[in-house]
């Protein structure tokens, strides 16, 4: 693989014009530097994470009593619709794209993404999506109330009669988000295929990069289906076509196929980068090579393939023919194989290691333990008879929040802490980080575990009120939800204060193997002084092999002074 380099010496590469700001103001510019764009993604999406979280806390406030008494039913319906939409389209996807944006070029030894301007355009569509989502609360009739699935015919009902309503704004937002993601996916796939450093063969490519590749390939094949379905829904609402409207002869089930063909694999779009981060973080903080690196890398691609044929398991109760139920049960369960390979590999990686409980390590370990639980309940859901009882109940809500918050959000936090010294050149405060982890882990269990028994007892999801028998579990879940809200405070405090005045650290405070740790912290505009030539596999702990042939590997054999002080004092 040769590295593509662009010769434009008079312009500082990665910046749109000479003299573009190089202080904090650069994060508010149309920068084409993948590192600036990455941080723009991460910070913007975190703001929306807080907004989506506040919506969910109002919901948990409503559900702390059985009656619908805190907010009106229409408001509650809008709350869960927008909570789901914001958390997926404005938090989880963008923050992972942001981490990928920041890390992938550094990890493969490239100077930038393949299409830097396209990259910036992809990012700047995200605030537009967010503004559309939030603006929908202000239009007559309020925000969309049909759930983030937007199943017709409910999503086609428009009591206000206005053409500009919450549902239409929602579809526009989702479509723009889809376009942004497709552009991002093209960029990632091209970058990973074409811009790896000399010597970086596929099986010398870090597991995170494999995971991002798998995730972005899903975006390429899946998103057109969702976007197509959304456009058809928009036409049904606005000009009265009859794709999905039953009173005009349309078929609402057809929408479900369009929707889930993308939206189930979308879970893997989100979890694969988290898996990738676990695979990067464990070796560093356990000081061992990633066990079974090749199969862990290949299993990411296997997940990409298998996830293309699982979508009907969301529709087992939707009048789906029996043969389809059985077929998709088997394919859905098969996802357990590559997922299991990864989990076993991680356990073997830490087995016999020299484990350090740093904050990123704690979040990675917590995320893996939650994923183990969520993966097992996922197999329950793939079984048709069990799914017939529990689908559309709180069992499902508990399961996917264990995936999303328990595994993916934990993975995101792990990644942010792990690469924070690389991004800022400073170290976060370990004590605040550990407090953050403790609150998050407890909060996750207290919020989402009680949802499982509530679901088994038969509590449907999306209800503003419920029967008295479910009150106990809901009070617990609500208290847990407020704890999760609280848990973000030490994180914000830590990030802001550490970025401004945290201890300065060297290039490689973790003594990690990986191209991104060979450059300065924060990296220079073009990432590397000299394009690295990769000579060995990643994760070479214990073997003392040099990772690259042409650049000295500072700090790979000894801990930097700053790190030893931190862990021993």
């Amino acid at each position, binding site marked *: 693989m040769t590295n593509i380099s662009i010769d434009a010496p008079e312009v500082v590469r990665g910046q749109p014009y000479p003299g573009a700001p190089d202080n904090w103001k650069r994060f508010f510019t149309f920068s084409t530097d993948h590192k600036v764009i990455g941080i723009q993604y991460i910070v913007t999406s975190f703001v929306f994470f807080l907004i989506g979280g506040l919506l969910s806390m109002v919901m948990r406030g409503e559900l702390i009593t059985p009656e619908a008494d805190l907010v009106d039913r229409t408001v509650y319906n809008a709350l869960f619709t927008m909570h789901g939409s914001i958390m997926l389209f404005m938090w989880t996807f963008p923050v992972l794209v942001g981490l990928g944006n920041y890390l992938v070029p550094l990890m493969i030894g490239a100077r930038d993404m393949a299409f830097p301007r396209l990259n910036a355009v992809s990012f700047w569509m995200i605030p537009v999506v967010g503004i559309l989502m939030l603006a929908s609360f202000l239009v007559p009739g309020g925000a969309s109330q049909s759930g983030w699935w937007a199943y017709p015919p409910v999503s086609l009902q428009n009591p206000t009669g206005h053409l500009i309503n919450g549902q239409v704004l929602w579809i526009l937002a989702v479509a723009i988000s889809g376009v942004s993601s497709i552009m991002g996916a093209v960029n990632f796939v091209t970058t990973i295929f074409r811009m790896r450093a000399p010597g970086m063969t596929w099986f010398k490519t870090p597991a995170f990069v494999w995971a991002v590749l798998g995730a972005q390939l899903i975006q390429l094949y899946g998103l057109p289906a969702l976007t197509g379905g959304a456009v058809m829904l928009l036409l049904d609402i606005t000009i009265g076509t009859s794709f999905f409207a039953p009173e005009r002869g349309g078929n609402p089930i057809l929408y479900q196929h369009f929707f889930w063909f993308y939206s189930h694999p979308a879970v893997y779009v989100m979890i694969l980068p988290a898996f990738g981060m676990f695979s990067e973080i464990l070796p560093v903080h356990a000081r061992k090579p990633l066990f079974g690196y090749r199969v862990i890398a290949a299993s990411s691609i296997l997940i990409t393939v298998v996830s293309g044929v699982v979508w009907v398991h969301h529709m087992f109760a939707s009048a789906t023919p029996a043969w389809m139920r059985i077929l998709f049960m088997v394919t859905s369960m098969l996802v357990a194989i590559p997922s299991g390979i990864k989990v076993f590999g991680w356990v073997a990686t830490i087995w016999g290691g020299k484990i350090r409980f740093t904050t990123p390590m704690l979040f990675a370990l917590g995320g893996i333990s939650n994923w183990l639980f969520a993966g097992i309940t996922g197999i329950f859901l793939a079984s048709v008879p069990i799914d017939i009882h529990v689908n559309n109940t709180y069992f499902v809500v508990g399961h996917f929040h264990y995936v999303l918050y328990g595994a993916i959000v934990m993975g995101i936090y792990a990644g942010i802490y792990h690469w924070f010294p690389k991004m800022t050149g400073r170290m976060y405060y370990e004590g605040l980080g550990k407090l953050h982890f403790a609150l998050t882990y407890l909060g996750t269990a207290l919020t989402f575990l009680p949802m499982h028994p509530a679901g*088994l007892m038969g509590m449907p999801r999306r209800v503003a009120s419920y029967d008295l028998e479910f009150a106990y579990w809901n009070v617990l879940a609500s208290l847990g939800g407020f704890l999760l809200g609280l848990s973000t405070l030490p994180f914000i405090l830590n990030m802001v204060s550490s970025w401004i005045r945290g201890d300065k650290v060297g290039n490689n405070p973790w003594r990690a193997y990986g191209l991104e740790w060979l450059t300065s912290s924060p990296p220079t505009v073009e990432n590397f002084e000299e394009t690295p030539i990769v000579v060995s596999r990643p994760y070479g702990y214990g073997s003392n092999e040099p990772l690259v042939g042409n650049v000295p590997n500072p700090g790979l054999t000894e801990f930097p002074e700053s790190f030893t002080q931190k862990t021993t004092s």
Partner: protein
Amino acid sequence: MTVYAILAALASFWMAKQSYSWFPPEAAAEAKLQDDLFSLFTGLGTFIYLGVIGPFLYSLVFHRASKYDMSDGPPIEGNTWLEIVWTAVPLVLVLTLSFVSYRTYEKMAVRGPMELVHLHMPEMMQSAYAKPFDSTPQQDIQNAMETAPIEQIDVTAKQWAWIFHYPKQDITSTELHLPVDRRVRFTLRSEDVLHGFYIPAFRLKQDIVPNREIDFELTPVKTGTYRLRDSMFSGTYFAANQADVVVQPVNEYQQWLADAASQSPTPAFNQAAFEYSQANDREGATKDKVAVRGWDTIPPAPPPVVNYAPKHEPDIAVLNHS
């Protein structure tokens, strides 16, 4: 290691037994089949969970770097034999679980004969109620299905009410009455949007699709009163779209049918219509008890006019407070 495996197996067995207590009563024959399957999944799931989390926690406790140890762990990168085993074992496991699930699903036969006849899948004909029909010619199966005593009930779901119609007696009710130990065949219809026919005590659920009639069968086996809930989000008053299900001995059921037939239709209480009228009527003040007011909604259908409505109002507490 062996001791841990034995303890994990015992714990898994215990969890599998416990899992039965996590559900509402088993009020349908299908529920028994599903709970057995769930118990199997719980046992295996617990065993896998403990099997992975044990070594995981063991490493975290015993493989920590000591304070001044700056060295690396052993550079073990893989083990082909181990990797093959931990790919093959889950593969066998999920294929087994798929097969067992398929057998259970087959025995439940909840989707009624229409689909089966259309799909020419006689092997799907066994049901939780009837004895297995293995190796019976298809014509015999059809005859058996046609002659078996099956109660037919038409179910209409709408925004937001459930109406149950008993075609033989031509009566309607907002409370679902079912005879115990009899196969019941529902014909599910929706007047507007998707709804979900869901009775947790029966462990059964079926989405109802507008413009389609969906046959759905089950066999109640335990008398009592249970809850029917809308499981597919259906708009503003979705959460209030519930009904009671009364499973009673056959003679009481017949008596109920006769009593209902003698009554002239009257409007039944309907939670959605009630809340809507309160919200739009300044005199009734439920709306003032809601902290945050909302937006316009699709008006609920008027309260259904039926022969039989439950004697007690479903949400008496709400009525008293208003």
